[in-house]
């Protein structure tokens, strides 16, 4: 047989074995949380973190893997909360049907917004994406007959899956965890695919990518639409979890929060943003219960991470890992 097969059969070092096992172990541990006597409050926080993790993953596809820094990533998530919440309340709370409808809305808007935003790159892209999100924020505030303005959309029923209601608690937690793992695996497959490698080429140099014949704009456009679609999964879960939504989900500070989770966890790593989302939710809970200056503290941590640890938790962990 070819030498490749020999290489396949060589013994794995213990570090490689742990590297291979890490993901299934983490996934199993996450799924087990509500069934091992975890306090309900902690489980609820973790449930929120799982939903945020889906959102942070979707942002990492843009920032970490395509090099497009979005300052308006609340857009896809927030839009999905409204689309899903409205549909679930007015038509049907069937989870899969609601998800399909909210994804349809999110993708349709992402196609338009992404077409405009990907005309530019870098700083201009960041600002245009912020402007897109501000437009959605203003629509959420202004289109009162549908969104109920600043009061927010309330009275979203529990989701139903195959005819059975999914209660908050272990059932909904499991649904969130399964969707997070699915999103993670789908994105991991995507970034390793030829399409993902093309995005990496664009990230390292748009000019060079264009020079070798890559349609840069089309790929960036596709990346934006996919990213919004994944964020939409998170938004759909979120509106069910909170039984409603308000325009604040589209506020610019929410875009800052998700950017913080992603950077804090580690750009371009996929597992990093998941850790970042968990850290963010628990840190916010700690800080808001112990101090009024949450925003100030959040800003300070954000600045320190960007200056001192631009590779985030994943970068720190990776350095410790390779030193051990």
């Amino acid at each position: 047989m070819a030498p490749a097969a020999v290489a396949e059969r060589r013994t794995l070092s213990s570090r490689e074995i742990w590297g291979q096992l890490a993901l299934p172990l983490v996934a199993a541990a996450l799924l087990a949380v509500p069934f091992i006597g975890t306090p309900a409050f902690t489980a609820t926080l973790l449930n929120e973190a799982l939903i945020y993790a889906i959102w942070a993953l979707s942002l990492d596809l843009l920032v970490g893997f395509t090099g497009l820094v979005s300052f308006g990533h609340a857009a896809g998530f927030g839009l999905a909360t409204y689309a899903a919440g409205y549909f679930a309340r007015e038509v049907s709370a069937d989870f899969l049907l609601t998800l399909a409808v909210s994804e349809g809305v999110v993708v349709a808007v992402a196609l338009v917004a992404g077409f405009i935003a990907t005309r530019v790159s870098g700083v201009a892209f960041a600002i245009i994406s912020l402007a897109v999100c501000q437009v959605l924020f203003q629509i959420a505030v202004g289109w009162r007959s549908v969104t109920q303005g600043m009061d927010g959309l309330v009275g979203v029923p529990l989701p139903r899956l195959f005819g059975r209601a999914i209660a908050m608690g272990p059932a909904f937690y499991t649904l969130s965890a399964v969707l997070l793992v699915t999103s993670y695996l789908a994105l991991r497959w995507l970034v390793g695919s030829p399409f993902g490698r093309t995005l990496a080429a664009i990230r390292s140099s748009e000019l060079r990518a264009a020079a070798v014949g890559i349609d840069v704009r089309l790929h960036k456009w596709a990346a934006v639409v996919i990213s919004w679609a994944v964020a939409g999964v998170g938004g759909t879960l979120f509106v069910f979890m909170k039984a409603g939504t308000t325009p604040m989900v589209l506020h610019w500070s929410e875009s800052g929060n998700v950017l913080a989770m992603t950077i804090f966890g580690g750009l371009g790593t996929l597992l990093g943003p998941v850790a970042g989302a968990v850290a963010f939710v628990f840190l916010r809970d700690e800080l808001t219960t112990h101090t009024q200056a949450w925003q100030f503290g959040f800003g300070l941590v954000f600045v320190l991470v960007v200056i001192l640890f631009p590779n985030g938790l994943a970068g720190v962990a990776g350095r410790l890992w390779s030193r051990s």
Partner: protein
Amino acid sequence: MDVNFLFVSALNGVVYGAFLLLTSLGLSLVFGLGRVVNFAHGALYALGGYALADVMRRAGLDYWPALVAAPLVVVPLAIVMERLTIFPVRNRPEIYTLLVTFGVSFMIIGGIEYAWGTGTVLIATPRPFTGTVSLAGNQFPLYRLFAATLSLVVSAGVFAFVQLTPVGLRIRAITDDRDMAESLGIDTKWILTLVFGGAAGLAAFAGALGAPIFAVQPEMGTGILLDSFLAVILGGLGNLPGSALGAFIVAMTKSIGGGYIADWSVAFLFLVVGVVLVLRPTGVLGRGRVA
């Protein structure tokens, strides 16, 4: 269509455009000079409004001396901020300056809410501009006209400074080619700090000057920050005349569009920006590469 309504909307557009000019020029100068994208510009604008209110209340000063004092309070803070947060990331891609100043804007707004609360602070219209003036049969607040005129004069001063003074010459040299300017012995770091402080002063001045018109509250800088960024992108990043043109396009679109469809003015503005970017990705007066 009511001609009077259009006239008043256009007049309000000019007033807002004059304020936007002050903030956009600062953003554009700092970007052109050091490739620094200052997301905290809006927070510095808000800080100007609060500095004014605080100086008036604590020192018991009148509006006019407080208007001069407010930027003087903000400039040293901005210089410290530049040294501590932007300086360490100066050799990284420019998006890092955006990220760092984004965090700083949270700190400033959080600090404002901590120190002064989340409520709105009202500043009375200062004398002698409390009245209104009749323009083609419309009563228009006198202070707005005065504030717009003052903004335009200060903006003209900024242009003159950049075009006519020795420091302005160095600023233009660095904007054109930083390495070349450095090799000719220009201290680029010092000039960037100076210009950053000056731009922050302009933002704080705009916040203080606008305080009697627009209410002072912690989030007051968010809207004008986004509008300034759109103005700067529309005009072509780092291009000063372009930013001035962009400021008035944004202000007029918002004011006239907003006059008819108040709830959708941001959406309308974005539509205009979108169309411009689709036609000209480098901005109206921009050349070459999109930053």
